């Protein structure tokens, strides 16, 4: 698809959509029981009114509009409206606590906020005394807000009303403002959650985003016929690119689910053709499939196992168009009718043309499972700072353990320390109000440090090992890549989260979080009584099960001389689930090692002592924000390790 170079901002693209494909659906939202749909013409008008409303309220070029809430059409329109006026949308994670929001709103000099509902309004009202620059708060859903009196709090409809009036009085104002926009303008500021310190505001210009988006549309031949589900946080660059930028450029329709709990069901209804997700969604889906199959009748289970084997044997080859013997092809066809098709149907994957997984490494088994079903799922390596795309797998050459070759227009190199660097038109302008960070991340000639360690394999595919700073060495000098080990462990459905230790130590130790759904289901089937996560985690049989998983990992590790030395010697199962609310994980569920090191010191020490038990006391946060103390006494077990030679013999 050729994009008109004059359309160099989203507002211009949007206005052009009204001419290009006014009647095609632009956005949908499951609301009041059906998929409410707006076509491009309606979206255009809505954004126009909204922008005029903002203008009437005094929103000026360069002003920031905070966007907080679940994926809602009106919030997306808010972004476009701000951009129309030369303003900058600043989407925030909707589940952030007040303190986190307060930081961003102050740091980004936000004057206006468009939020979803009472919950977010409450947060805004709570932080507003400490954020003097925040002037106006608008909300989408008036539920529960009847008696709210603050003068600067208004309904979205109020904004539109003002906008309509403003437009009648100043019919040319908006068009001229849109025309003023140029490609080097700031398009959006996205705050990265960051594993340490305060979040950083990544400034992306229209040029950054549009250049990568244009390449990506060409790369994957995206058309206006794609169906896409917007369910990831709006503050995340992935959602911004896939649900906003690409949609505006390619003209495809984005669907917003009813609520977080209904995503899977909504996905089944919509049947996206284009899908983006971090690996855990795929992991969860696979776990659900396996768990539910366990409860199926004997015949169905046998059939499932048989055809999954067939798929394992030939599914990927069929997907990638390689030659497959006719019998297998026939069996696969039958399997498609009785197993793969129905499975894809229940997962909502039937129409999937292209799926991406990124953010973390995905388990090869999980990856292969979906590919063998005939779903074209690919891996991508990207960053907010790069407007996502760094390396992407191509359709015909997909390897489960790499991230593919560099994306068109992106240069990638590996530093001497093993760190990955890249350079591309999508590279961010700077961190907002943080020149030091900008300097330390991007070199003068445009190379950006990713902080990830990796290397290119013989085919030129990038392989990520871990964060550069997290790759360490055991005392005997063996390479220790904690994330690599943890991912290997997390590929077992029973293990939800794992944290490994080893840098500067004699051997590798691990904390394990069991997967409550998978292990709970197992417990029910084996008549193991448990009343809580804690109790289940402490069960000796569960310990035995996890020990076997780790043993298997060790056996795998022993096959590779490079890492054979980093086999796991001791482990314990944590009494609580690691939680973003407690700061142990990031919002995207990455382990925060520093916090864990601080918080579980006593347990780590126990791992590296002779003791068979470890004691812990710590504070936890509940979902409603309250805190409590947890005390636990946990068992620590040793695991067998394997010699590199022994396996080879």
């Amino acid at each position, binding site marked *: 698809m050729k994009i008109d170079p004059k359309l160099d901002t989203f507002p211009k693209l949007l206005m052009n959509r009204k001419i290009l494909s006014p009647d095609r659906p632009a956005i949908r939202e499951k609301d009041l*029981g059906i998929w409410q749909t707006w076509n491009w013409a309606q979206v255009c008008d809505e954004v126009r009114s909204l922008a005029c409303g903002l203008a009437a309220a005094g929103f000026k070029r360069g002003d920031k509009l905070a966007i907080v809430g679940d994926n809602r059409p009106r919030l997306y329109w808010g972004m476009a409206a701000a951009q129309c006026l030369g303003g900058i949308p600043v989407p925030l994670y909707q589940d952030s606590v007040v303190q986190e929001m307060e930081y961003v709103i102050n740091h980004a000099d936000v004057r206006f906020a468009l939020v979803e509902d009472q919950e977010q309004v409450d947060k805004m009202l709570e932080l507003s005394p400490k954020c003097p620059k925040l002037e106006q708060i608008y909300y989408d859903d008036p539920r529960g807000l009847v*008696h709210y009196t603050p003068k600067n709090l208004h309904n979205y409809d109020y904004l539109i009303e003002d906008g309509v009036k403003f437009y009648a009085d100043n019919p040319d104002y908006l068009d001229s403002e849109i025309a003023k926009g140029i490609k080097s303008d700031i398009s959006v500021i996205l705050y990265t959650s960051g594993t340490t310190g305060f979040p950083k505001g990544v400034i992306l210009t229209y040029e950054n985003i549009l250049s990568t988006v244009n390449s990506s549309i060409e790369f994957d031949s995206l058309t206006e016929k794609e169906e896409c589900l917007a369910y990831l946080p709006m503050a995340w660059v992935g959602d911004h690119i896939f649900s906003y930028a690409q949609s505006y450029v390619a003209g495809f329709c984005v669907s917003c689910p009813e609520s977080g709990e209904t995503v899977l069901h909504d996905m089944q209804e919509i049947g996206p053709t284009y899908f983006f997700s971090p690996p855990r969604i795929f992991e969860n889906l696979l776990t659900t499939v396996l768990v539910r199959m366990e409860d199926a009748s004997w015949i169905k289970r046998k059939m499932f196992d048989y055809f999954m084997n067939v798929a394992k044997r030939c599914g990927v080859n069929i997907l990638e168009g390689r030659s497959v013997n006719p019998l297998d092809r026939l069996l696969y066809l039958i399997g498609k009718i009785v197993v793969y098709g129905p499975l894809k149907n229940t997962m909502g994957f039937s129409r999937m043309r292209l799926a991406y997984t990124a953010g973390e490494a995905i388990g090869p088994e999980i990856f292969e499972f979906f590919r063998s079903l005939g779903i074209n799922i690919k891996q991508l390596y990207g960053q907010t700072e790069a407007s996502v795309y760094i390396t992407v797998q191509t359709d015909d050459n997909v390897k489960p353990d790499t991230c593919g070759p560099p994306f068109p227009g992106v240069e990638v190199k590996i530093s001497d320390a093993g760190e990955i660097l890249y350079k591309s038109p999508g590279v961010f302008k700077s961190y907002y109000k943080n020149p030091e960070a900008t300097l330390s991340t991007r070199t003068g000639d445009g190379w950006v440090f990713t902080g990830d360690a990796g290397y290119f394999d013989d085919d030129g595919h990038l392989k990520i090992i871990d964060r550069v700073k997290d790759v360490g060495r055991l005392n005997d000098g063996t390479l220790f890549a904690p994330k690599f080990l943890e991912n290997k462990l997390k590929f077992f459905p029973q293990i939800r989260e794992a944290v490994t230790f080893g840098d500067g130590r004699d051997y590798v130790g691990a904390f394990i979080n069991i997967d409550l759904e998978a292990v709970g289901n197992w417990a029910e089937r084996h008549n193991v009584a448990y009343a809580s996560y804690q109790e289940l985690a402490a069960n000796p049989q569960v310990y035995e099960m996890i020990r076997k998983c780790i043993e298997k990992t060790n056996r795998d590790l022993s096959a590779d001389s490079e890492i054979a030395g980093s086999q796991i010697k001791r482990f314990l199962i944590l009494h609580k689930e690691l939680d973003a609310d407690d700061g142990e994980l990031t919002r995207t569920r990455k382990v925060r090692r520093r916090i864990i090191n601080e918080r579980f010191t006593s347990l780590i020490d126990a791992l590296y002592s002779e003791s068979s038990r470890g004691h812990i006391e710590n504070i936890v946060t509940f979902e409603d924000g309250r*805190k*409590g103390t947890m005390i636990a006494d946990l068992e620590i077990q040793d695991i067998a390790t394997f010699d590199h030679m022994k396996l080879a013999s």
Partner: protein
Amino acid sequence: MDTATTTDVQTYETERVREFTNFILEVEGIFVSFGGVKALQDVSFTVYEGEIFSIIGPNGAGKTSMLNVISGFYKANAGRITYQGNDRTKASPEQVARMGFARTFQNIALFKGMSTLDNIMTGRIVRVKNNFLKEAFYFPAQPQEDAQREYVEQIIDFLEIQSIRKTPVGKLPYGLQKRVELGRALAMEPKILLLDEPMAGMNLEEKEDMARFVLDVNDEFGTTVVLIEHDMGVVMDISDHVVVLDHGERIAHGVPDDVRTNKDVIRAYLGEH
């Protein structure tokens, strides 16, 4: 699990300003008896338009009988009921419904064979102009049906029961059934909502939810709510006025704070509790 609460999330709290001017319902000197048993004796009270009004009293005090008289099920032996200034003492339940009264029952009176959606849709029957011939040919009736559906969806959204929209109500847990019944009543766009123990058999969390819904109905639709409830906490928190019955007689009538301290009430109802 050993946990301790340390802090609470601060939330924005609002003060509701309540001013009432018009009576919507006036109950005067109602007597009801069943074969010699006197259920209600000379009960009078008035309900303001837009308020939350509670009827409380011990079991057997005549609360439900009172509600049945208001909703037209029982005919009062004597007395008068005035609605918006008009005498409607003799109206039948169905007429009362069409006037703008909706009620829920203590023991849930849902249509068990129908889905949540259909149950709430039945509440729209009073508001529909379709006849069966139009419906049989579907298309003539369809715009109406869509409009009704949209209205009902707002209620479903309001009561947060989207996920059970198509579930047969017989399969729902008790708390949700109560919510669906409230939904059906709301679908009638009532002026007065009569709730017979909406929180009976609920735990605290569910009571909080239900209280929230009652408050929201009152706030957002301006519906007058007449409530029978046992939980004094709920009644005192959310009511604007309270009438207390005992053995079919009115023993107190007023704002919650006055009623709470009324000697008769304490003796008859609250006991030492």
